[in-house]
């Protein structure tokens, strides 16, 4: 059983983290949604963030991706030029640094086609602007062809082949989740943040999702996962952080976390 007080000793100490969250706090008025959170994401691993509803998991995601900036603390990401602080950056800048995300309540461009959704994801890796669009010189035509080709590849990767012409909003729920992942992958991330990807899925669907996450890992993308479905979490995580009332109360490997009394208490109440 790991201790919960020594927050940074749980993981291999000399490995270099891809992302470090250092004493991040987020307050909404008088409510502290996240208090002094510290965590590290190791490259090539699946790290999970679990906790009861309202524990502040999504708030932490929002702070990392810049959607709702943190009140205090530092968020560091390892880039080719060394560590870089990102807690003050705009969301689009953070995406360009290689951090992509999906949303708890799916946020697709629901009136656009499936293919166009993924094409938008390729935005940070392409460069045609206003004059390129109007004059359409050969390099822009080539870029558009490349965009279409790689968008189709991402669709195929996520098991959405043959769906490219559909309107995104009319896709079945499971496919919408996959499309959101395809769009996030299209931005070319090194780190993918998945916010409850298995929510509302039946067992067969979450098994498929597990396979997809494994494929994403194999392609060299680090995964940070919020999930309620314990089958998914325990199955795939290399390391787990447990958040309760905005504080990280436990961390460790799945086996360690499962038997941690504080985790059991947080999930089931102190009577147990």
């Amino acid at each position: 059983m790991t201790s919960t007080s020594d927050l940074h000793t749980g993981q291999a100490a000399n490995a270099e983290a891809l992302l470090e969250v250092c004493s991040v706090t987020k307050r909404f008025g008088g409510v502290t949604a996240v208090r002094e959170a510290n965590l590290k994401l190791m490259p090539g691993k699946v790290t999970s963030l679990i906790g009861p509803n309202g524990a502040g998991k999504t708030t932490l995601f929002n702070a990392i991706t810049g959607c709702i900036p943190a009140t205090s603390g530092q968020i560091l990401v390892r880039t080719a030029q060394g560590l870089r602080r990102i807690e003050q950056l705009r969301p689009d800048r953070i995406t360009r640094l290689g951090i992509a995300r999906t949303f708890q309540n799916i946020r697709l461009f629901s009136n656009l086609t499936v293919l166009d959704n993924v094409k938008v994801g390729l935005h940070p890796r392409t460069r045609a602007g206003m004059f390129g669009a109007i004059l359409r010189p050969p390099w822009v035509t080539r870029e558009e062809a490349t965009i279409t080709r790689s968008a189709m590849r991402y669709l195929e990767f996520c098991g959405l082949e043959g769906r490219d012409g559909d309107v995104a909003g009319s896709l079945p729920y499971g496919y919408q989740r996959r499309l959101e992942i395809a769009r996030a992958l299209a931005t070319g991330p090194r780190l993918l943040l998945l916010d409850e990807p298995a929510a509302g899925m039946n067992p067969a669907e979450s098994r498929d999702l597990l396979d997809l996450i494994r494929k994403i890992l194999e392609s060299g993308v680090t995964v940070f996962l919020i999930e309620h479905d314990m089958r998914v979490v325990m199955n795939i995580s290399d390391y787990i952080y447990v958040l309760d009332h905005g504080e990280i109360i436990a961390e460790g490997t799945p086996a360690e976390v499962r038997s941690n009394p504080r985790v059991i208490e947080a999930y089931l109440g102190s009577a147990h």
Partner: protein
Amino acid sequence: MTVPTVSLLSSLAAVVRGRAFAWLLYFAVAAALPFLLQAVLGESFSWGARTLCYVGIYAIAALGLNIVVGYCGLLNLGFGGFMLIGAYTTGILMKEYGFSFWAAALVSVGHGALWGIILGIPTLRLTGDYFAIVTFGFSQLVTMTAMNWDRITRGTKGYPGIPRPEVDLTWIPGVSFRHQFQITSIYEYWYLVAALLALCLFVADRLLRSRLGRAWQALREDEVAAEACGINAMWYKTLAFAISAGYGALAGSIIATYDTMISTKVFDFMTSVYVLCYVVLGGMGTVLGPLAGTALLVTLVEWLRENPAAQLARVMSWWPAAADWLARVPYQPDMRFVLYGILLILMIRFRPEGLLPNRARARELHEHGEAGDPDHESLFELRQR
């Protein structure tokens, strides 16, 4: 049908759907329209040709507003302000400083776009209704400035005596006929408007089907998700606002030389509302929608100047009683706005997505989800098939 016939037909259909064919059709129709009108309308041809020119000019404005409202999903209630800036810039440059129409129009587009950026940067952070209110305030500000800056704009007296555009072909070697001429006849005006409209359609179409257009549509659909895809929301919204303002200024600048006299009344709040109606009723977010909306609504307002009942009575001569009754229906030209309002209400009730909508928007506005709709099938069930 034999196989070769089918493939021939399908390749023919592909050509018809293609853009090259659409442009060919556009230029053919644009070239023939004045002659067609003359043949059909006879003595009221000048009315028809004037309406046609207004359709073209306001279609340019509608295409511009569509970039902000349709592509980007931001409500702009102050579009008339940009048209006014374009009109006065062109008027003053041509009359006071001897600019050619082409140079003046170019400067006007830049001037309009500049004000688009100046208005956009501080206000595009606002969302929804708040943004719409600020754009309304801006147009009032522009109108008030033009109305009170007597020394430059002659204020409420209006700004008369704007010269007509001149076409100068002397710089092209080998052109021997009519090297230099002034655009004065209604035919020449229509061809000028049609050419500029073609340019505007071309740009609007190219912008929509590009990386830029996708970024705009993504912002319209979900700004948070768009930013998570690495799209700089402020930059793209400001760009849309600037391009849109440039379109508005171009429309204003054509109006200035077409009417040769402009006043702030031409570009008041109602102008902004009308152009917005053209866009919404034509079909937001498409290229042809605003064009269709403008054509229908401008023609309608011009046609309803005359008592529609009396016009109907002329056609009903085979039923004298009805014709007689119709001829006695009282009418005031301003009553056309009542009919116009009724039409708008009917349109919003029965065809809210516009005349030529994009498919997705029509899907959103007309409820879907009947039995067997894929929305209600799970991924698991689909795989079982």
